[in-house]
């Protein structure tokens, strides 16, 4: 399979005053194949949203490359960048605040086409997109405040898909929705992926949701990837101690709880060596000195740990 999105050695740092820097994303590499869904999980503050934005050059990453269908976005400027960005669309967490409250649904969905200068069959494409996401025709003239959260999220998805992108990045798209509506949106994303043949990057803190929708899952901790594996594999036999702890802390997880103590260290001064060592039950002296590299231990299953759990 060919990779639609290739991210290599992505680094994002923000100045934090007094000469300090927030190490939000540190040397993250991954790729997404055509038609594939990659899940990205981690606790808040681990850098998953920053990765999503850096892919779109919002803001430009400190270093690293982001290739979409072979074209390096980090090398593009101005008009060329804006045109290339059309292939990558974002769906945000809060569906209500991500839509302009003064605009009608049709205009919201047509706007990206208008900006792209598409004139031909614009109306038709908009109504087709609205229909595809399961919105009734009468919603077309409504404004966001007249819709429910679930409906607004459908509008956001329609708006992302109307430009026929190659990749849709969903940043916690169901986190602010009710459980009963969440399943509708997850099923919709699954259907849209096939209908529009796009690849998805699905970001969430909810492991059960990520497992349901993803082909592969990448686990992030404090700005770094610690494990990447096929979804079923990752949950059946997690190798990184952090992944194990994450899975164990899900209320419905079977077996004893391998509890994680403490909290995320500051990204201003990340721990030396392995960033997880300060909370890791298996940490040894080597973990503080030497940084583990993401290595493939089983076919398709990579882990960054000196002492992975077999």
């Amino acid at each position, binding site marked *: 399979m060919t990779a639609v999105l290739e991210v290599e050695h992505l680094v994002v740092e923000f100045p934090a005053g007094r000469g300090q820097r927030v190490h939000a994303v540190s040397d993250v590499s991954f790729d997404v194949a055509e038609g594939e869904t990659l899940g990205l999980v981690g606790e808040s503050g681990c850098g998953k949203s920053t990765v999503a934005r850096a892919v779109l050059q919002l803001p430009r990453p400190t270093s690293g490359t982001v290739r979409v269908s072979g074209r390096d976005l980090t090398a593009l400027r101005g008009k060329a960048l804006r045109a290339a960005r059309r292939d990558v669309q974002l769906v945000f967490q809060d569906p209500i605040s991500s839509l302009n409250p003064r605009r009608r649904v049709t205009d919201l969905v047509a706007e990206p086409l208008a900006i792209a200068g598409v004139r031909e069959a614009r109306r038709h494409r908009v109504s087709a997109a609205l229909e595809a996401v399961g919105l009734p025709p009468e919603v077309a003239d409504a404004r966001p405040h007249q819709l429910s959260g679930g409906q607004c999220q459908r509008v956001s998805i329609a708006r992302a898909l109307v430009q026929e992108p190659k990749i849709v990045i969903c940043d916690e798209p169901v986190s602010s929705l009710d459980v009963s509506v969440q399943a509708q949106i997850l099923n919709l994303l699954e259907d849209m992926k096939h209908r529009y043949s796009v690849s998805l990057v699905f970001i969430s803190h909810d492991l059960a949701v990520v497992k349901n929708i993803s082909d592969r899952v990448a686990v992030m901790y404090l700005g770094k990837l610690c494990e990447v594996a096929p979804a079923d594999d990752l*949950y059946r036999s997690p190798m990184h101690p952090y992944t194990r702890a994450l899975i164990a*802390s899900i209320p419905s997880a079977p077996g004893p709880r391998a509890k994680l*103590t403490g909290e995320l260290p500051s990204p201003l001064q990340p721990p030396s060596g392995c960033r997880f060592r300060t909370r890791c039950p298996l940490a040894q002296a080597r973990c503080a000195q030497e940084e583990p590299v993401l290595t493939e231990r089983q076919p398709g299953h990579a882990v960054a740990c000196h002492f992975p759990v077999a």
Partner: protein
Amino acid sequence: MTLLAQTALATPLLDVRDLVVHLRAPGGTVRAVDGVSFRLAPGEVLGLVGESGSGKTVMARALLGLTPRHAIARASGEVLFLGRDLRALGERALRDVRGREVAMVFQDPMTALNPVMTIGAQLAEPMRHHLGLGRREARTRAIELLERVGIPSPQRRVSDYPHHLSGGMRQRVVLAIALSCGPKLLIADEPTTALDVTVQAQILDLIGDLQHEQQMAVVLISHDLEVVGGRADRIAVMYAGRIVEQAAARAVFDAPRMPYTEALLRSVPRLDQPSHTRLEAIPGRPPGLDAALVGCRFAPRCPRADDRCRSEEPALGADDAAPDHLYRCWYPV
């Protein structure tokens, strides 16, 4: 049911009878809580589950008289705490109950604390007011409490301000404040929703330990059945302002009677399913509560509904074989 549990239910700690709270809203009235009754035995953990807008938070606040007076369009029913109707108490008498006998923990630990007071001062406040402790004594107790809820180096932390602490640590402080006067009942409204999964497990375990230690009853409110599942003795499911099912926690998971509960359990992705398992979504959304509703409130979204469901609302009842498993349905699962 054991004899002990029977006597406990005979003299409940909390007995809510037909509680109604209708709120004023721009377009009219919202029937947020519409006739809710339940009982809680001393030391019991009741999980209260429902989607947003089902009325759980309005109900929880109404128990302690925390609903702003100007927002109430209509309120009735009784909230009997150890036989005393809290709804009949005046503000001053209520203040002696709040924080002392009944404590509450809210969802958002960021806004529950006063940003310009040290956490030590906030911990000392209820103890000085309710228990009459002196300044020094209250501070010593505060340090002990911080230690109990798992805050590292409590002697130092006691002088910190809330912004020095992370979300999980703040929720621990909020819990310490709630527990400072040894309440008999703790109402925890989505105590972990704003927190990360790993921290969520820590806080829920802590609530469980403290509940056990202090033999305190807990109403644990959440939109997430799974969160409440392993920790509650009984579960009550709310939908559109009403309790639609109430039973022992295991029974709700293993054999729900109410179609809504069953649908809710099925719509949640589970870790034991392979990836790409199609989810059984519940069509539509909960009804608006601004008009009187006829029939079963779940009927428009229910696969079993027929004309009877749409015209006549079932009462919260039980089968003779399982008198403790209450449900509100004509055609139970």
